[in-house]
């Protein structure tokens, strides 16, 4: 665009106005740009830099160690545990969240359905409440004498109360269920926005042709909402890899690191004394390595989406 603009010959007055306009534009974006550079652009570079040092963060005493932190990471079973858990969490959360929210959106995308606003608000409310608060409350709800155990034993589904978050076997599943409950509404709204783009007459035509609701959904609706579905999947995947608030407040990564993800690993390594002295340099290496993986995943998914759209 700019190259194009330069080639056009301007009179001195036009040239002056053009320069002035450009200056105004940059002045207008400057505030956003400064905040972006200060709190996101520069920090991402800093993180790479810190990762090359042996540094507690408590003092200014930094020793350059090259790639040693990364080498240590490779052999650190706690790091690999957290790394795997981040992806385990993603693989469990994304399909559940995307499918359940699509089902709700499809049921609610019916103007004649009575009470649809009330249903939508109820299903969405967990999204707006503070994740850390929800996590704390859920610790009780899922505890040995909480409502979940009472309901399940009342229904005869379990014979003995289960400590859902305290048991290594169930902790991750419980965290996943709570996350899906909490964030489902976000994706439901995304799907509703996509479904509202499906013209009514297309659906009507299909039903006149004798297609059932399920058949219409798979043969008519899905192809139309496919492009938005791509965006929803990417957002859900990236967001699931960013998870911290709920996990930290539900389990803190426990029991015995069963739910430890990279975000909780970095927090523990850099900001608490649970593992001895804080290690800023080492935690930065973990954060950098993980950040690179997430960025690559984002780019690959985006690329796949672009390719698929071209094929259509």
């Amino acid at each position, binding site marked *: 665009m700019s190259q194009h603009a330069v080639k056009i010959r301007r009179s001195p007055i036009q040239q002056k106005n053009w320069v002035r306009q450009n200056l105004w534009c940059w002045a207008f974006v400057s505030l*956003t740009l400064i905040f972006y550079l200060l709190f996101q652009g520069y920090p991402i570079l800093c993180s790479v830099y810190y990762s090359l040092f042996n540094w507690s963060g408590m003092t200014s005493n930094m020793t350059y160690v090259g790639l040693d932190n990364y080498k240590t990471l490779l052999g650190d079973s706690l790091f690999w545990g957290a790394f795997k858990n981040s992806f385990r969490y993603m693989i469990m959360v994304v399909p559940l969240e995307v499918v359940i929210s699509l089902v709700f959106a499809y049921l609610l995308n019916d103007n004649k359905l009575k009470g649809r606003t009330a249903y939508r608000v109820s299903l969405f409310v967990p999204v707006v409440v503070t994740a850390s608060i929800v996590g704390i409350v859920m610790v009780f709800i899922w505890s040995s004498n909480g409502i979940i155990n009472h309901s399940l034993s009342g229904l005869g589904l379990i014979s003995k109360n289960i400590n859902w978050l305290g048991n290594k076997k169930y902790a991750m599943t419980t965290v996943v269920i709570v996350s899906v409950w909490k964030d489902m509404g976000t994706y439901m709204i995304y799907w509703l926005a996509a479904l509202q783009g499906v013209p009514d007459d297309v659906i009507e035509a299909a039903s006149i042709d004798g297609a059932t609701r399920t058949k219409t959904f798979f043969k008519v609706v899905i192809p139309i909402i496919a492009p938005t579905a791509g965006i929803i999947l990417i957002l859900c995947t990236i967001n699931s890899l960013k998870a911290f608030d709920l996990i930290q407040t539900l389990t803190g990564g426990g029991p015995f690191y069963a739910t430890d993800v990279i975000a909780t690993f970095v927090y523990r390594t850099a900001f608490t004394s649970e593992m001895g002295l804080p290690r800023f340099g080492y935690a930065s290496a973990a954060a950098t390595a993980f950040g690179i993986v997430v960025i690559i995943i984002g780019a690959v998914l985006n690329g796949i989406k672009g390719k698929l759209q071209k094929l259509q």
Partner: protein
Amino acid sequence: MTALTANKKLRALHPSKIVIHIILLLCSLIWIYPIVWTIISSFKPQADFFKEQLSLIPSKVTFENYIRVWSKANFARYFANSVIVTVFSVLLVLIMTNMAGYVLGRYKFVGRNVLMAVFLSSICIPLVSTLIPVYQIVKGMNLLGTRTGLILSGAGGAHVVFLLLFSSYYSTVPNELEEAAKIDGCGFFKIYSNVMFPLSSPISTTVIIMESLWTWNAFQLPLILTLNNPAARTLAVGLYAFKGENTVDWTGICAGGAIAMVPIIVVFIAFQKFFINGMAGAVKG
């Protein structure tokens, strides 16, 4: 006539419709249960909590939990911190994204596309990867454990969704309005402040609501930035600390939780249209 109403009734009672309603009703109850439970438990006497923890109707309503957390557990302070941090962060974000969205949507200035690409690509950067440097930057500014530090770092980032909302809105405003203002002698800034900014109020409302919810609910950054100074904690962090110190005071935890949740639920219900439109716009844009 009778046939018509009978027909209507039949349709209303169609078995598949009933099944859908039962599913939706059941799920809606499951979805709001933990929130309703928190609010109700916050009014139960502390001594009776374990005895009647499951009942949704307290045998006795008490405000002692609120009084306890509000005055003794510092929640008055946390609440004030949350309000102050939210108000100023939102104002900052509104001003900067509105201005940036305006020029990104209406002008083809040098470097515009590069800027847009840089902002867009930031969606993929996880907060955990910038956490430690942001902590150091705030520390370097001498703002660790202060509300100013929380406000500035909370307003950081690219706010891609808001930039997209504003720029796509401003790109649809007809040029005639701008031309008319130019004839009246308005310069670049005057056109923006007198003509364009007021026009953007529906989007501004959406941005205010969304950013308020995000700032109010923020946890990861406020947690690490207030580690050295409990007095600067927001509600989201304050309750976490409170739970760490008072594991058995569940009615107090519920009261603290309700103090954090109720304002945001009220705001959401009052402005839900703006919030939902903003979110929907984010995936469509």
